């Protein structure tokens, strides 16, 4: 919020997604989510499974099923409201200006085509270039994601590559057209730890080279600390806290964030047990009317029966808690 508005690549305002089940039951998976991402910066969206972080990313990409999902709010990318855009416009943007990488590199590549073919497909779809030029660019992309001997890997089928290599190919595909925004939905979750570090390092390097803004969706606070500049913490479809990464780890301002940090293993203090957050995420087809975290919150007060707003607690940071700022409580 301190940057000049010209730098804002993606602005999401009051995004809400409601799914209607076949039995007519409505589930509000995302409820009033807002954030902005700046050029060359990385925004982390953190939360546990089912908190709506993946649905948020699919809504931005326009990839939610037309039947069954109702999306409202504003998603402004490069000055254009994506929710108002036609499917045709969205198709032209996807893969070109808007790119996405997925959680499962093992299954996100088509087994019937070589990796080179799959990168070329993106280029030929969005750029008017010859096949020879696309091939050259695809090999160049494989080199940029640091795949060794890219000329030979170009003709490999996905089943010959390891998970880490496949995720590199997915990143090469995503960045082939120099997108303005890259959404990475749990890009390292399916990989083992040493490969995770390599992929994160790669993403950080490529962000510096290309200046793309990145939205990184994860449940792993370690990943957030590693690569993000700003963080949005989501719980039960709502943003509960928004802060820069340093502030979030130093002074969490929402009891849920405190709980998440408490559940992290650390080397610098001795603890016999990790503290878990008791209880479970509320049923989203009938969310509680008050604070959604209240049932699991150790700092609960009577006022929590009322839904707290996402309010500023310090310059540049927001918290959805009646008791914020929490300094006095966290001790």
């Amino acid at each position: 919020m301190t940057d000049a508005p010209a730098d804002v690549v993606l602005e999401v305002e009051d995004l809400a997604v409601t799914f209607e089940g076949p039995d007519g039951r409505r589930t509000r998976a995302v409820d009033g989510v807002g954030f902005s991402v700046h050029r060359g910066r990385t925004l982390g969206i953190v939360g546990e499974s089912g908190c709506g972080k993946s649905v948020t990313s699919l809504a931005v990409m326009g990839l939610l099923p037309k039947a069954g999902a109702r999306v409202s709010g504003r998603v402004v990318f490069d000055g254009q409201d994506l929710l108002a855009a036609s499917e045709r416009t969205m198709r032209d943007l996807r893969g070109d200006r808007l790119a996405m990488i997925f959680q499962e590199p093992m299954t996100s590549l088509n087994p019937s085509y070589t990796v080179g073919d799959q990168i070329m497909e993106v280029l030929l779809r969005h750029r008017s270039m010859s096949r020879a030029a696309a091939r050259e660019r695809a090999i160049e992309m494989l080199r940029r994601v640091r795949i060794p001997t890219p000329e030979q890997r170009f003709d490999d089928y996905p089943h010959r590559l390891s998970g880490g290599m496949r995720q590199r190919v997915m990143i090469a595909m995503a960045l082939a057209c120099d997108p303005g925004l890259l959404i990475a939905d749990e890009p390292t979750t399916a990989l083992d730890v040493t490969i995770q570090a390599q992929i994160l390092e790669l993403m950080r390097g490529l962000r510096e080279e290309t200046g793309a803004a990145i939205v990184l969706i994860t449940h792993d606070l370690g990943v957030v600390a590693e690569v993000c500049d700003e963080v949005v913490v989501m719980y039960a479809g709502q943003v509960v806290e928004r802060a820069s990464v340093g502030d979030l780890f130093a002074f969490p301002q929402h009891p849920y964030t405190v709980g998440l940090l408490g559940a992290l293993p650390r080397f610098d203090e001795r603890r016999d047990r990790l503290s878990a957050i008791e209880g479970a995420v509320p049923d989203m087809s009938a969310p509680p009317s008050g604070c959604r975290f209240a049932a699991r919150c150790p700092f609960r007060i009577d006022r929590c029966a009322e839904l707290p707003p996402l309010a500023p607690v310090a310059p540049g940071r927001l918290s959805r808690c009646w008791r914020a700022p929490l300094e006095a409580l966290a001790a």
Partner: protein
Amino acid sequence: MSAVTVPAPALAPANQTLVIESPRRRAWRRLRRRPAAMVALAVIAVMILAALLAPWIAPYDPIQQSWRAVRKAPSAANWFGSDEVGRDILSRVIYGARASLSAGIISVGIALGIGVPLGLAAGYLGGWTDALLSRLTDAMLAVPFLILAIALAAFLGPSLTNAMIAIGITATPIFLRLTRGQVLAVRAEDYVEAARAVGNPHWRIALRHILPNVMPPLIVQVTLTIATAVIAEASLSFLGLGQQPPAPSWGSMLNTAQRFLSQAPWMAVFPGLAIFVTVLAFNILGDGLRDALDPRTK
């Protein structure tokens, strides 16, 4: 900034074996290791060659009658014997392969040509398209294969072409249903979502990203259905609804032969054997292909 160095052992040695193996080539390599399937493939190849080269390899004209050679047992002159009007059975079996194999292949071609696009549409589009096509498929599959083929052939009128059309239409729901089921499974794959995420239009996702991945079970079904279609053609010809006399067909030869079963069993044995061997070969090849194309088997 520090470049990421990839530890070399994490990869297959790049300069060593660079045999790029496409899924097709891998299936072929695995098929070659199955002797039964390879024998079946050889038998089918011989049958197809015989059908194609019939005018050159058949010893006699298949419709040339000879009153001096009526119902002769197999001999050096007539290897498979001769029939009730003195026609050479070997020549008729060779020419009969044309009717049987073209009926098998063309009718399955018809079924594939209608069933696969409709199955793709049903599976990919869903909704009322799927509901309509699936009910139609259920209704057709509720009628036994041969009964439906006979009814359609009788409706269209007796000729080999009409028999092929009847068998083709009858086999269509098999391919429609198989394609639909496969598409439903593949449509949920991550790479289909990834294909959408790079801006592909629906038609391209359906044809380029889904269709190739539903092919393996279809290939297996094609070989098995050819076997069924060969039997169906023989049955229709036996009943007089397929190949019309005097043109030879294995089914109609069997029909004639049944009247002379005790006097001239060779009239029945050889066309019967031809049907048996052809159908068996296609079935064994189908089984072999199924194993070769199944990623779970080694």
